[in-house]
């Protein structure tokens, strides 16, 4: 039965429970993972569900996501139906009551912000539009500041033992963010008024919501949409 011992020895590490950090965070997109890392530091253990090379609209509720959501204390997602294809399934299949909709363990960045490009009328003939507004909120620096403040407070709510650390990290981050934002604005002044072409409507927050007309060759294929601003 020696082979059984070796098999178990080989498999056991796969089942090792991860080291207990104060707060297990499941971030839907890399930007929120990075933000949570800034605010939480080594008091948090962060898993990012998607990479920047993946379209968050097309993700499936695969086993690794369910397993990671199972042990999460806090889920940080964009919301505004960006993850509607997979996050609700991950929540209900995870067996984790803390991260269900409406619980403090589920944090949606879009709920903290005023979204732009909210459609007057929603219909699938317009393509797979987002009824609550444009969900790609992370590209506007002022949005990151607002979300950072709200996220830090949520971390405080879930892990009150580290309140001082989270609030101090948030203050330090927001200060650096303020300075960086001012610098970016200055660096961006030569780009004012320039016309650009974008692949998908996810650049609206970066270039400002005062965008021009869409030129559409096919209503349902977002790769053929153009935005000029």
């Amino acid at each position, binding site marked *: 039965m020696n082979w059984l011992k070796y098999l178990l020895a080989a498999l056991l590490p796969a089942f090792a429970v991860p080291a207990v950090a104060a707060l297990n965070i499941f971030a839907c997109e890399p930007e929120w993972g990075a933000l949570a890392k800034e605010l939480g530091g080594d008091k948090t253990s962060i898993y990012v569900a998607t990479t920047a090379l993946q379209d968050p609209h097309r993700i499936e509720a695969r086993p690794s996501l369910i397993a*990671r959501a199972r*042990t999460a204390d806090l889920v940080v997602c964009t919301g505004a139906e960006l993850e509607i294809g997979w996050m609700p399934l991950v929540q209900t299949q995870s*067996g984790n009551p803390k991260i269900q909709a*409406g619980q403090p363990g589920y944090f949606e960045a879009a709920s903290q912000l005023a979204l732009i490009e909210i459609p007057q009328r929603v219909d699938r003939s317009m393509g797979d539009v987002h009824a609550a507004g444009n969900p790609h909120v992370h590209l506007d620096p002022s949005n990151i500041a607002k979300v950072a403040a709200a996220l830090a407070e949520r971390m405080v709510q879930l892990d009150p033992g580290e309140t001082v650390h989270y609030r101090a990290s948030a203050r330090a981050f927001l200060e650096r963010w303020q300075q960086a934002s001012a610098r970016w604005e200055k660096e961006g002044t030569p780009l004012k008024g320039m016309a650009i072409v974008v692949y998908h409507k996810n650049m609206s927050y970066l270039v400002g919501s005062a965008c021009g007309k869409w030129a559409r060759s096919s209503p*349902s294929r977002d790769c053929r949409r153009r935005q000029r601003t």
Partner: protein
Amino acid sequence: MFKRNLTAAAVALTLAGPVLAQDADLAKIREEIRQMKEADEQRMQALEKRLKEAEAKAGKAEQSAAKAETAAAGSASRGGENAFNPAVSLILQGTYANTSQDPNTFQITGFVPSGGEVGPPKRGFGLSETELTLSANIDPYFRGVATVALTPENETEVEEAYFQTLALSRGFTLKGGRFLSGIGYQNEIHQHAWDFQDAPLPYKAFLGGALKQDGVQLRWVAPTPVFFELGAEFSSGDQYPGSDRNKNGVGGSSIFGHIGGDIGPSYAWRTGLSYLKFSPLDRSYEDVDSLGGAVTNTFTGTSKLWIVDGVLKWAPNGNASHTNFKLQGEYFRLQQDGNLTYDDTAGSAVFGSIADSFNTDQSGWYAQGVWQFMPSWRVAYRYDTLRYGTVSNGIVNNALGPTAADFPVLANHNPTRNTLMFDWNPSEFSRLRLQFASDNSRIGATDNQVFLQYIYSLGAHGAHKF
């Protein structure tokens, strides 16, 4: 302006210098200058105050505009009696079928008929089931889902109607009602989400298409980075391979486990083992004896089914938008032990009702690969095969009268099928499929099938099941 006035006054005074102004005049002028200064200062202060107020108002206006935007967005979904309406989605589907054999004569020779709707669709234009799904959170503790199928024959079937817990801790989820069993891989996937128009042969032969359980399911997800779940179901056991027993207690039970994870950013996999045990009581099926008369065969005993399933998905860097590939396969083994009663009293009435032991040990498997080679376009190939294995029919073996020819459905045969499929998906919600199959389910006859199918989904966004 203030400076100019003052300067003007000063100049005037200087020019008038040599002329000695009277003290009263001087005092009067000083008084006027003082008043002008005061007035100017007051004006300046008033202007500054107005500017500050205007800025504050602008700031407030921005905030309230932002609030109004979010409120406007929210009010669309908030308020009124419809606020808590469930998510509703409707599936519209139909098939145009061209089959070389008559669908009404379909059988999977060698295997006890499973009684499900497992035959090919009717020839020509045919509407498939229209599925209506409603789902919503009931309260912080429970979620509810119902899927009702409206058949082209104008019947209403409850596919699924279950509640699910949200608030159990430690990784447990309890489901109750009617639900697709968690055994295997494809069993839990709704028919409109399948990669082919029809179910694989093992599902048709051993589960009647897909197994629905009326009962409870308890699932546990392990707190490990590798996905590991265990599930157990207790049900009435009245779906094939069980039967309606009219007995207290549990009629059927199943237990299953799955392990899954990622390999790098591009691969995701899941594999599992399931075991199902039903105890059918007087489960009957119709057949025809060697004289052409109707026969009813009734089985009572135990049915044990094992399933090994596996699925592997690939997408470049995990992004399935442009290209992706999915490989899946399942192996089934069904063992039935009990008694079979042969009854031809309603037909030829040669032997009457004869019973003896009946044991089967049969298996089957399928493997399919689906490849999205460009956005919106997929091609897939599937191979199914069933192994006749051992069918030990006591009535025939012990020469009680009926011979093997009186059990034509159970003739020794190993069905196989090859299927090729292309589909076009203009969006996530619409699909057009062309499918070719060469089906050897019937002994001695090959059915060449061509299907053209449409599947459309309206309403709430569906879930991307793995």
